[in-house]
Structures are given as structure tokens and as C-alpha cells.
């Protein structure tokens, strides 16, 4: 028996709606409300005051952590871009065989199917004192004893997060490059441009949407990461998410944690909307 159209619509739309309200809207609202509450150790009381936000601004450790997190996220995006763009370009323009292209593409994307924890942990074993890097350097004679300098700092954070999130840079750039019609490059050559000029004037501008999408994804993912900091970060590699986790855990200061989480959310939303605006700007140009 056919149900009335209205009922069918409700049935189809309810699960996602309930899901969004229950698991997105409600938690954000709770977070928002909590961020104005007051901490009264060991618990906290309902209130409406700006104290938590004032703490964030006045206490330099929060501002510093936030700045460090943004710096690490920006470096991760930058290095991902510098590695991913040439790789994607090579795949699209230099690898002729579709089979080889797919294999090389999957080589980058496939690790996404492996647990994040495992991939991040890998770098602990590579960079650690007993790790592959130290063993190699000792074997070559460059070092005489294992060095601890490779692990537990910002560099190891950037290296690990770049490795973990680079597929999110490769995928959109590859898609954008592949979408550029080949005859545009031929037309450019036909009109007198060499390879470099063609790249700068045609390929690069037409692949910018992919670059921006990749930058947004890697930045936001790295910005919100807190597991890598536990594994390879050390005190200098602490991220803002680690601070938030502490507020909800050991520090038992949910109101401050909520305020921090909201600040983070606003930053991420600002970045996403900026990138979305850029993409809209470029989209009209493809007919």
C-alpha cells in the first residue's frame, strides 16, 4: 500500500533530521550555554557571565596555544600543498597508463583506510630514539648514539600531521587538475606560450579551487587534531584541542573548555566560509 506523499517525506527525512538535532544542534547549544557558566571547584554552576572568555584573552597560555596550533596547522597545509601539487600534476600529466595512475593515486589515498592512530603511531617508531631514523643515522655513521631531537616537538607534529592528512590535499587538487580540458593547454601552446607560461596562466588558476579546498581540509583537520600531540607532540607540541580535553577531564572546568571549543568552532567556520566564497567566485567561470 502506498503511504501518502506527506507521510513518506516525513519518514525519509526524519532520521537525518533527528540525527542532526540530537548529535549536532543539541551538543552545540549545551556547549554554548556552558561557556557562560561559572566554575565552582569541584563543580560548576549556571550563570551568565563573560569570565571564561575573559580568561581566554587575558591568560597568555591560551592565546599562545591557539597561535601555536594555527601555526602548526598552517605549516601542515603548506607542506601538504608543496608535496601534493607536484604529485597530482605528475599523475595527471605525466603518467600515461590509467592503471599506473590509479595505482599511484591509491598509494596516497589508501592509508586513509588504515586507522588514524596507527598511522600517527608509525612516526613515533620512525622518529623515536629506538626508531628507524636514528638507526639509519647511526648505521651511516652520522650519529654515534641515538638522538632524541627528532621526536616530541613541533617539527615532529608537522611531519606526522602532514603524513596523516596529505590525502585530503592530493584528492581535490588531482580532481581539479584532471578537470582542466587538455585542449586549453594545447590552445595556450598554439597561441605562443611555453610550458611554464601555460602553467602559470592556465593550469594554476584553473586548479586553484582544488588548492583552496585541500588547504581548508588539511588546515581544519590539523587544527582540531589532538591525538598526534599525545603520540609525538610533547609539551612544545600541545594543541588547543589538548587544552580543551584537559578542561573537560583533569581540570574539571567545563565552562572554560566550552568557551575554548566555541572559539575554535568560530575560527574553523570562518575559514570554511572564506574558502566557500572563493570557490563560488571561481565556479561561475566554468561553463
Amino acid at each position: 500500500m502506498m503511504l501518502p506523499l506527506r507521510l513518506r517525506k516525513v519518514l525519509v527525512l526524519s532520521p537525518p533530521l533527528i540525527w542532526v538535532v540530537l548529535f549536532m544542534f543539541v551538543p552545540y547549544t549545551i556547549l554554548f550555554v556552558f561557556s557562560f557558566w561559572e566554575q565552582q571547584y569541584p563543580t560548576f554552576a549556571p550563570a551568565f557571565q563573560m569570565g571564561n572568555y575573559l580568561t581566554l584573552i587575558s591568560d597568555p597560555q591560551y592565546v599562545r596555544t591557539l597561535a601555536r596550533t594555527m601555526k602548526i596547522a598552517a605549516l601542515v597545509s603548506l607542506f601538504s600543498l608543496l608535496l601534493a601539487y607536484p604529485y597530482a600534476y605528475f599523475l595527471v600529466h605525466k603518467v600515461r597508463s590509467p592503471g599506473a595512475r590509479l595505482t599511484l593515486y591509491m598509494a596516497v589515498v589508501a592509508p586513509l583506510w588504515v586507522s588514524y592512530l596507527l598511522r600517527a603511531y608509525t612516526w613515533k617508531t620512525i622518529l623515536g630514539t629506538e626508531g628507524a631514523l636514528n638507526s639509519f643515522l647511526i648505521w651511516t655513521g652520522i650519529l654515534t648514539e641515538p638522538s632524541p631531537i627528532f621526536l616530541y616537538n613541533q617539527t615532529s607534529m608537522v611531519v606526522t600531521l602532514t603524513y596523516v592528512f596529505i590525502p585530503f590535499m592530493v584528492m581535490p587538487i588531482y580532481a581539479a587538475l584532471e578537470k582542466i580540458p587538455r585542449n586549453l593547454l594545447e590552445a595556450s601552446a598554439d597561441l605562443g606560450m611555453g610550458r611554464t607560461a601555460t602553467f602559470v596562466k592556465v593550469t594554476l588558476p584553473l586548479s586553484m579551487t582544488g588548492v583552496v579546498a585541500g588547504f581548508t581540509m588539511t588546515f581544519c583537520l590539523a587544527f582540531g587534531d589532538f591525538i598526534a600531540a599525545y603520540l609525538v607532540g610533547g609539551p612544545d607540541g600541545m594543541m588547543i584541542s589538548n587544552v580543551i580535553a584537559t578542561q573537560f577531564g583533569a581540570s574539571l572546568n567545563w565552562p572554560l573548555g566550552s568557551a575554548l571549543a566555541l572559539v575554535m568552532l568560530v575560527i574553523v567556520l570562518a575559514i570554511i566560509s572564506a574558502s566557500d566564497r572563493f570557490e563560488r567566485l571561481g565556479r561561475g567561470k566554468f561553463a
Partner: protein
Amino acid sequence: MTDIIRLDGLSKQFGFVTGVDHVSLSVRKGEFLTVLGPSGCGKTTLLRMIGGFDEPTAGRIWLDGDDVTDLPPNHRAINMLFQDYALFPHMTVGKNVGYGLRVTGVPKREVETRVREVLDLVGLADKIGAAPHQLSGGQRQRVALARAIVRRPKVLLLDEPLSALDANLREAMQVELRHLHQKVGLTFIMVTHDQTEALTMSDRVIVMRRGRIVQDGAPQSLYDMPSSPYIADFIGTTNLFASRIENGRIACHGQLLSIDPSLILPGADTFGFRPEKARLHRGVASGASGANHLRGKVADVMYRGSIARIIVDLGTGQVFVDLQISDAATGLPQKGDPVTVEIAPHKIMSFVAEDSA
């Protein structure tokens, strides 16, 4: 030296497949040459080799006396009108057209003047600031054309330029391209699979088949004197039939026809006539001997507006005859009507059948 392009034994091999097979060709300055052929005959590959986009496996390409075989496209004074226009989507019409000028070191001010001039020429001066996606198909094509001729190339290559347009626009663009050719005096080399386009637009047509040139001539000579049954059927329609010659007469599906003896090629074994060169009579004409008559019945009528193509069943085969609608004062013949086809002896073409492989 009036040859602007000379191809010397040009070949292109794709693995084991031969795309273009030892093509030699000269193109005169200012000529509108069309390379005609079915898809896969190598015509586009030939054009791409002239443009520098595909490397020949053998042979040389000469442009205005210089060997350009090993030069990349950006070092050849040749421009191409791409099949789907290849306009840069992130640039305005003006920037698209001016794209090729800045690299040659033309001063900024002159770039502007020349862009305006050439947009004027194609009638799109008011679209200089528009983005390509805001234009119609025909306008995009004209922008692409402007972009291709603004550098004043020695040769303009046109790769199936009209195939992406709808029928009405295509006809208008045929005229426009031809006018433009006369106005700018450039050498045009066009590739198409559309025989009407080839006949209408060009000074000279080259027919390609399986990577080779099979006929080279003016449009009219190609139509009136096709060199093979293949071309006779590829360009226009021809009623073809195999026959031996006996007493100066041939058999068309079992019925005898006289043929002008001066038209019989030595060794001819295939004959044909164009549907519009035959006349159709109602009923069974009283067979005066010597009259070139084929008797049959109407098998079908294909109405085409200005003409009707009548398919006549001769018992053992069929022939097409075109009837001018203005001649058919008494209305079109009906299916099953007995008719007589008259074909003058000097309107029959003779061929030596080529290998059909």
C-alpha cells in the same frame, strides 16, 4: 614560392595502427583547403601534425619554406580553431583574444587595438568584457576564431569547426567563415567529415581514407568526376552497380543501358549515376529501342521538401531517383506505382573497382 605548406611523406603510427600513411601535399598561399573523410581516416591527426600537437613518425613539414617538423606549436606561425573552441574559462573575451599577443611582445596599447579590431571583424566588439560562459555557442566560436587570427598566422587550422553548432547556425557560419577567408586572405586548412561543408566552403578538397589521400580537386570536379566508387558514394549519393560491357551496353540490375563510349574507362567494371541526373516517368514507357530506360515499381518515397527521393524497385535491385517537387505537378507517385527511370548515356559514370579490403 607560393606554397605556404608542404607535407613530404608524412606518416603517423600509433603503435601498430597507421593513422596517416605517407601523405604528401602542397597548400597554396591564401587557399581554403578542406580535408574530408570519415572518422578515423587520419584527417585530424594530419591537422594536429601541421599544428605541432602530434609528432610525425616519418616525413617533413615545411611552412613557408622552413622545415618546422621539430618545432613545438608555440614556435609555429600557425593557429588552430579548436573543435570545442578551448576558450579559457577564467578570462574575459578580451583577455582570451589578447592572450597570444602579449607573449610576442606586442605593446599593451597595440594589443588593445588589435583585440578590438578583430572582435569587430567577427561582430562581437560589445562582448569584450564578457566571460565565455555568458556567450552562446555561435558567439564562443567567433571568439575562438578571433583569438586564432589575431596573431596573423601564416595558416589557420580549423578542426571540425562547425560540428558543435546546431543546423541553422552551421549554415550561417559556413557563409561567415568563407567571407572571413576572403576578407583576411589567410590560408585555411579545415578538417571535416561533412561533405556539404567541404563542397560549400572550400577552394579545394582532399578526400582521405585509411590515412591516405584518395582524391584531390576542386569541389565540383570531386562531385562530377569522383575517382572511385567510394568517393562517388561518400560525396553525395550514387546508384552504383557492377557490370560487364557488352556491345557498348551495361546491365543495371539486369536491365540494359547504353553508355557514352567516351566515358568508359579502360577496365571499367563498376558504373553509377547520381539520383538527380535521372528522370522519372509515370507508368511503363513504350520501350523505343535505344532509349535508356529502367522499368520498376516505387518501393518508397522520401519527401525532403524541395525534392523527393523515390526508391525504385527494379526487381533484382533498387535505385534512387530525385524528383524536383516543382516538376511533380500531379502529386508524388505512390508506393507500388509502375514507373520508368530514364538516364542519359552521358550521365553514367564508370569506375575501375578498387580493392574492397
